């Protein structure tokens, strides 16, 4: 099938370009360790802020510190995975502006794969490391009534969450074909999204929770499956089976983002320099 071969082509190109960037990053090893450490420190600060909050209170929106850490770890790790794989997509606006996107268009590989792998930032492992550390801390301290189903659900949550955030990165990049300079808008959904998901859903206004459940389905990254695992009330009084929807939502989001990407790419007109 033509479509499958394109996907295979894309993945192959993605793998080759990322391998090249990793080699180039490793040429400056000290710089790599510094920036990875910087990445890790940066993300650690917002967890420290949560720790500071819990030094003054015992509960936030009815959630204990280990429970918030559980939400935080899932959101941060899923976001970190998406950021590692596709974080460079946010540079699209710059490439459109300075005309360097044209270089990618003439190469015999899918533009999406080239763009995603462009400037592949291995330093982003810092965020994933930090997310996983908080998740491990949460798992060690939180009180969960484990069942085989819940255990199986854990890796599914992380992978689906990464898929949903990845779709946001792609859709954000597609939007930049139109918006060019306005690349910062996507930060509201990517960084803003992961920040929001680090806190319990009970903290936010119902309309906001509805928005991130039914319009931009970020709630499927962690809120809906995590409340099920924790045995907390599921937001908006939704039934338990929504906890198992994240893979479907992720596939749906990626399909929509892919369509947006194609539409954006088709509408692209070079600046001509």
């Amino acid at each position: 099938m033509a479509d499958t071969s394109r996907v295979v082509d894309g993945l192959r190109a993605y793998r080759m370009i990322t391998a090249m960037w990793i080699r180039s990053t490793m040429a400056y090893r000290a710089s790599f360790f510094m920036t990875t450490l910087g990445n890790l420190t940066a993300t650690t600060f917002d967890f420290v802020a949560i720790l500071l909050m819990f030094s003054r209170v015992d509960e936030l929106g009815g959630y204990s510190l280990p429970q918030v850490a559980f939400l935080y770890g899932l959101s941060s790790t899923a976001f970190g995975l998406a950021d590692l794989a596709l974080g460079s997509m946010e540079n699209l606006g710059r490439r459109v502006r300075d005309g360097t996107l044209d270089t990618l268009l003439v190469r015999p590989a899918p533009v999406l794969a080239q763009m995603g792998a462009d400037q592949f930032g291995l330093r982003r492992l810092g965020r994933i490391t930090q997310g996983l550390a908080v998740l491990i801390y949460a798992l060690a301290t939180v009180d969960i009534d484990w069942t085989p189903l819940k255990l199986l659900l854990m890796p599914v949550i992380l992978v689906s969450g990464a898929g949903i955030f990845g779709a946001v990165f792609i859709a954000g990049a597609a939007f930049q074909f139109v918006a060019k300079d306005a690349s910062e808008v996507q930060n509201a959904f990517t960084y803003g999204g992961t920040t929001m998901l680090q806190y319990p859903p009970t903290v936010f206004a119902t309309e906001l929770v509805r928005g991130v459940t039914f319009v931009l389905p970020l709630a499927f990254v962690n809120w809906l499956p995590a409340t099920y695992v924790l045995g907390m009330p599921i937001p908006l009084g939704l039934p338990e089976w929504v906890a198992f929807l994240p893979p479907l939502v992720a596939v749906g989001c990626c399909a929509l983002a892919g369509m947006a990407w194609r539409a954006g790419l088709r509408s692209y007109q070079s600046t001509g320099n």
Partner: protein
Amino acid sequence: MGSGRLYLAVAVGGFRRYATYRAATLAGVFTNTVFGLILVYTYTALWDEKPHLGGYDLAQAVTYVWVGQSLFKTLANGGGGVESELMERIRTGDIAVDLYRPADLQLWWLAADLGRAGFELLGRGVAPFVFGALVFDLALPTDVTTWAAFLGAVLLAMVVSFGIRYLVALSAFWLLDAKGVAQMVMFTGWFCSGMILPLNVFPGALGEVVRTLPWSALLQAPADVLLGHADPLGTYAFQGMWAVVLLAAGRMAQGAATRRVVLQGG
């Protein structure tokens, strides 16, 4: 041309340069508003649990959020001021051209950064603040004096912020690629300026330490003046002290760099 007029022209240039990117400005306003919303809800949960935390009531805490989002770009505590350009000029060696100009390097960049900060305050600061004031219950002063005192504290905060970032940028003379350092200092600054959590909520000794660091002159100081939580004159003295110390340190670093360091040639 008098030197005062020269730096004024540089500042105006900085203002106009950032004013050019309208779509980017709008995008920034949107993003800051979204972050403001997220913080308002988390602070509300926090203050519900513990009213009068850090001496603020809920309305004051919510006001603090919008002051923070409005000053985010102005103070550039997350980076993104003129220092990234200065760093790049040092790395490439273009700085030699700047040193050749009949103008003072530090004053030149201070003027450019103040112009930038002025635009960010008007272009990116006002809209999220108005949004916050319309949607939430804010604790805003009704007298003009407090607002004027607040603006004075913001101006001093801009100078302190520049003082920190200038030192970071100058480190490129020795490190060549100061991006790692810049990143570390920025994130430390982001946290220590109270962007995530007001500094008066920080517990115990940690709280006392962060409240004496220069970063507390950036957001906490003007916010406390606006909220009637701090005496303006005492605040000015604290900010002024850090401004002088940092600018003097910047001048010394600049002297050392231009005397001893061999520039990157082209």
